[in-house]
């Protein structure tokens, strides 16, 4: 017997969204968090869950290009939207390989990750931050602080993450010349 207290939260809904450039349809209970739907229904486990209350930023994904905390979004809310996760950050080289996003390259180059659990959230936040600015201008320390200031990392002390943002911005700037 269904418990009355459940109400409508577990009613199943079918959601259509473009995930990492591919149209996807998935059926989830109305209460399912976007983070859980991505990880467990779509198998995109690159998005990590660190606190489930919107503070740490590990679960950050792009919703129509804007960073959101996927633990604070219901899966049913992304109906008709474009969702980008860390798995969609690199682009295909059309030869079976992939070309990493400059911020991914920069994280490796600058040792901006240790355990790697918070990394996807940082990558998505920073990628959106770099996308939103004039790539021809050198990035300032304030801009960098802004881009990384809302995510928690327990391993790196942030120094190398900030360095990586500078590095990625410089790479993008070079490419625009």
């Amino acid at each position, binding site marked *: 017997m269904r418990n009355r207290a459940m109400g409508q939260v577990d009613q199943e809904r079918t959601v259509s969204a473009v995930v990492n450039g591919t149209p996807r349809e998935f059926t989830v*209970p109305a209460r399912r968090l976007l983070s859980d739907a991505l990880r467990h229904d779509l198998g995109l486990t690159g998005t*990590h869950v660190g606190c489930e209350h919107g503070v740490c930023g590990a679960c950050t994904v792009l919703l129509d290009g804007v960073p959101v905390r996927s633990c604070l979004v219901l899966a049913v809310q992304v109906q008709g939207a474009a969702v980008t996760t860390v798995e969609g950050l690199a682009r295909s080289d059309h030869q079976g390989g992939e070309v990493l996003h400059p911020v991914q390259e920069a994280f490796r180059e600058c040792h901006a990750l240790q355990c790697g659990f918070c990394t996807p959230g940082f990558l998505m936040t920073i990628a959106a931050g770099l996308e939103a600015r004039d790539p021809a201008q050198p990035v300032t320390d304030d801009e960098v602080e802004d881009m990384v200031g809302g995510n928690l990392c*327990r391993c790196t002390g942030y120094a190398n993450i900030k360095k990586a943002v500078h590095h990625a911005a410089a790479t993008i700037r070079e490419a625009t010349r």
Partner: protein
Amino acid sequence: MTTKLFGEPVRRREDGRLITGRGRYLDDIGHDALAVAFVRSPHAHARVTDIDVDAALDVEGLVAVYTYEDLLGPMAEPLPVLIPHPQLTAPRTGYPLVRDVVHHMGEAVVMVVATDRYVAEDACDRITVSYEQLPVVVGVDAAREARHAVHEDVPDNVAARHHQETGDVEAALAASAHTLAFTQYIERSACMPMEGKGVHAAWDPADSSLRVYTSTQASTSVRAAIAAKLQLSLEKVEVVAPDVGGGFGVKIVHPWPEELLVPMAAIALQRPVKWTEDRREHFISSAHERQQRQEIRVGYDDDGRLTALDVRIWHDNGAYTPYGIIVPIVTATQLVGPYVVPTYRVRVDSVYTNTVIVTPYRGAGRPQGCYAMERTMDRIAQERGLDRAEVRARNLIQPDQFPYDHHLTFQDGRPVIYDSGDYPGLLDKLTALVGWSGVEERRAEATARGKLLGIGMAMYVEGTGPGPYEGGHVQVLGSGKVLVSTGLTSQGQGHETAFAQIVAHELGVPIEDVEVTTGDTRRFGYAVGTFASRAAVMSGNAIALAARGVKEKALRIAGEALEVDPSDLEIDEGLVQVKGTPGISIPLRTVAVLSNPLRYAFDEAAKQATQFAGPGDDSKPPVAAGDAPGLEHVDYYSPVRSTFASGAHAAVVEIDTLTWEIDVVQYAVVHDCGTIVNPMIVEGQVHGGVAQGVGGALYERMAYDADGQLQNASFMDFLMPYASEVPDIDIDHQQTPSPLNPLGLKGAGEAGVIPGTAAIASAIEDATGRRIAAMPISPTELYDLVRDDAAGRVAPRRTGAMA
């Protein structure tokens, strides 16, 4: 010549998967597994009078419910006291699920298994546990007063009395020209890895075998614990640490109740079962560390040189002692730091409170010891009217005094004998790096801006790389691939890279050919674990020895094939060749094929090997006595005792006199971890440690109320540093190789966190002229301290300090 790899900032080999979302953390495994959720006690101390699960039985998707009554055999017994100690006279541990009495908020009372986590939590919500509340003990002072007992049969709340002394401290104090006595406090923080704990277990009924993935720092030990508690034969249990999202100590404890309960359910239900800890669970049911009350008496001469030190510590060990008294022993023995302490006595009472257990968090008692010693140095400097750096310089162990015996017994039961170091060198580098002598100009400049500026320093010595052992396995395949494994685990330290650097260097192969596996009992069964800054020292050296064994065998086989003396051969870029005679060579992969007398020509490598195969001696067996097929070697490194790393930190703070916000504006680190395998990784470890040190000094605390409720059990309320709270860090290195191990390594993992609280307390005191005797300190607390006329004032040492 092979590219130089050892000592170079080689980019990490684990990063490729981690930056593309291809890492494999615990919760990424087994989406079809049944999910576990727990009903945890909302009370800190209470007797369970009834558990009513009836309402949960209606929840669609519920699979099973377990309480203590369902635990059988060894599972119904208390969890193990992992590290007994003669002075741990009243050890207490909990049960996997609460039996009768809850001793801290967050203890698991009921385990629910359901089709998914949402459903499991629905069921938990419908289970009613009735409690009879009991009096609660929170904090070391309440534990000490013992008006109430945490455990009925331990009325004084004392789990252990740890005591070490190097002479007659009372006589030495009486004979001292000057003495000081003071009391100070340090509070609780926690490791708080971004990934909580988690366990996935799958039972293969046909094979009667169990595979467990767990987010652990000690997979071999979890395996042994599961086998013992679930009464399985060891070879039927595999435990794998997948990618682990940070540890910092909390994941060294084993077995966590969930590491037993989840496999138990998987076997009973014959289905894969998974539990992923959520953040609140991590706050209220894993582990914390650091709370101590320290009463210090010190004697010294006119020049500020120590003559006697007597330290009385009350250490809060929380509700249970599964990890023994490792943390208080580390505090007691590492407290002496880089100084000559002619007579030392330390007495630690490790006391029970109705709070989450206390087990090692990065530093593991060292930050508290450093806080005690370094604040003592500051007090002596103030009393003698001396510069704080000068007092330290006068008390340092000198470079010609190594090995230096403190006549203490370390956590591993071995003597505290410092193997090597150069502490005056550290101090000189630090004062230069931070600009110690130029601080008065900066203070004046800050004052002009309405800010109070202060500087502080702290030095430490850290026992790293304790035994008993770690092992390494190195195997060269016919493909040329070099497989390396070690039993200890990784939580972001870059072991796949550092260990590959060691093997590439030792064996003379391209690093691209080397593949490292850690923490997988299928690959290496014997290990101790990743803690106490021991991975590079222990497994690094074991792997180096294993690689040397492989090299010796490779040269012998190649020598036979090339008909040259092995001592004339070298390996470079994966090619075994005659030194100085290019051209006479054989690829290492071919040597690997030759090493096995059975070589069907499955592939080119095997075919090529036949041309080197000699005629063979018909009078001898194909595998000689004492030899073995295959180009592989296992070796172990077991040190006689720990190796001692060291360092010195300085912090400059600016304090806003309106908000009393404390801003760390400069942070300088001089660090000595002996020979460095990868400086990029070591600096990363220092950065992360310093961030945790700043957090522990200024932001992080576990806010238990008098009822034992943890009031800040979320990232909203427990303030971990964001980027905006962590200062830029200037680092200078010093390398005094350890004479104890083949590679000269000392541990580097924990160092960054150790002196933070001491250095920042000193800097705040310097800025405000107010005695700082309790850490961490918030702006509100600092405001109250400055406004409170009764609070201790520090005599101004310099012009510009606040009067």
